[in-house]
């Protein structure tokens, strides 16, 4: 209980500390102490703006997911570069609705960000009831394939990471 | 070797900036111009970092960081303005 009061968001504290050290580009003892103090103080000061706790069930899975997405971004860019430099008459753009199974807000925003960064798709809008994501695709060959790929690559691992609060 | 690569990279990024600038001028719609500004600041970051490597100075990095933060805010504010007709709620 005491721990929760001093560190309302332990993850945020760690991230802030790391950012402070990176910004100063040094690991002097002075910066470690000052950054540590700020990292404890800022989450405490702003905790009323962060009402909900973020539940991450398997942190290692999240790290694995991020590395996987980074790799996918590399491949995606080669594909997009080809599409952009190729003849544009061949491109078949379109809007598609993707049905979400994720319910946690953090999970949904992470999925939308991932979709925007990977091949030929940008997430444009979320319906009011949070059930469909409107996606614009640069080139559609087969809609079912795009949806299946998003589910297999991104939504399934995210479903395992974020539990419903 | 590094100097040659840097020179080529400078030319490429300069062309990129020119292209986004043309898009900024011809539009045709408002979101197009916002997108062109967004691209312009990302390209500027690339140019500044290249300049930093070329002049062997880490000072330009700070400017790049500021441009990244301010550019993001600018894009957000402009899009929000189009969406709601108001920035603050």
């Amino acid at each position, binding site marked *: 209980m005491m721990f929760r009061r001093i560190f309302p968001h332990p993850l945020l504290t760690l991230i802030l500390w790391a950012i402070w050290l*990176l*910004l*100063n580009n040094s690991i002097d003892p002075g910066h470690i102490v000052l950054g540590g103090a700020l990292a404890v103080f800022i989450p405490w000061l702003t905790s009323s703006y962060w009402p909900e706790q973020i539940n991450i069930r398997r942190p290692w899975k999240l790290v694995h997911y991020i590395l996987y997405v980074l790799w996918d*971004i590399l491949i*995606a860019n080669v594909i*997009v*570069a080809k599409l*952009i430099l190729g003849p*544009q008459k061949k491109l078949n*753009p*379109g*809007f*598609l*609705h993707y049905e979400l199974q994720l319910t946690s807000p953090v999970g949904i925003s992470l999925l939308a960000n991932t979709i*925007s*960064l990977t091949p*030929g798709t*940008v997430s*444009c*809008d979320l319906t009011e009831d949070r059930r*469909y994501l409107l996606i*614009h695709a*640069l080139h559609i060959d087969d809609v079912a394939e795009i949806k299946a790929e998003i589910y297999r690559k991104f939504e399934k691992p995210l479903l395992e990471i974020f539990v419903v609060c | 070797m*590094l100097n*040659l*690569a*840097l020179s080529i*990279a400078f030319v*490429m990024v300069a*062309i*990129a900036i020119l*292209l*986004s600038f*043309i*898009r900024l001028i011809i539009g045709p*719609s408002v*979101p*197009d111009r916002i*997108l062109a500004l*967004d*691209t312009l600041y*990302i390209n500027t*970051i*690339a140019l500044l*970092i*290249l300049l*930093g*490597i070329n002049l062997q100075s*880490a000072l330009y*990095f700070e400017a*790049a960081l500021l441009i*990244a*933060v301010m550019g*993001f805010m600018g*894009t*957000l504010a402009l*899009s*929000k303005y*189009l*969406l709601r007709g108001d920035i603050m709620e």
Partner: protein
Amino acid sequence: MLEWTLAILILLGAFFTLVGSIGLFKLPDFYMRLHGPTKASTLGVGAILVASAIHFSLKTDGVSLHEILVTLFLFITAPVSAHLMAKAAIHIKVKQVDRTRQLEK
């Protein structure tokens, strides 16, 4: 050897930045133009920043990691601003190219 790695990273970065802007320049409608800058430019700048990190780590003693910060920041913010711009464009009904398909749920 390391100089080669740096040169390749810088050239790759500049190339992707250029591809992003070419996409912005030549694609026919706003929604398609959105794809170029959000993906290609972000990766291009990321590659250049990694090259800068390696360069300054070698030149000075100790590592220089604060370039990672800008890279991370760009990778987090690019999709967010793309999403908002797309939302704004849909809101004010920006024209789409005729062959855009509308796929229902």
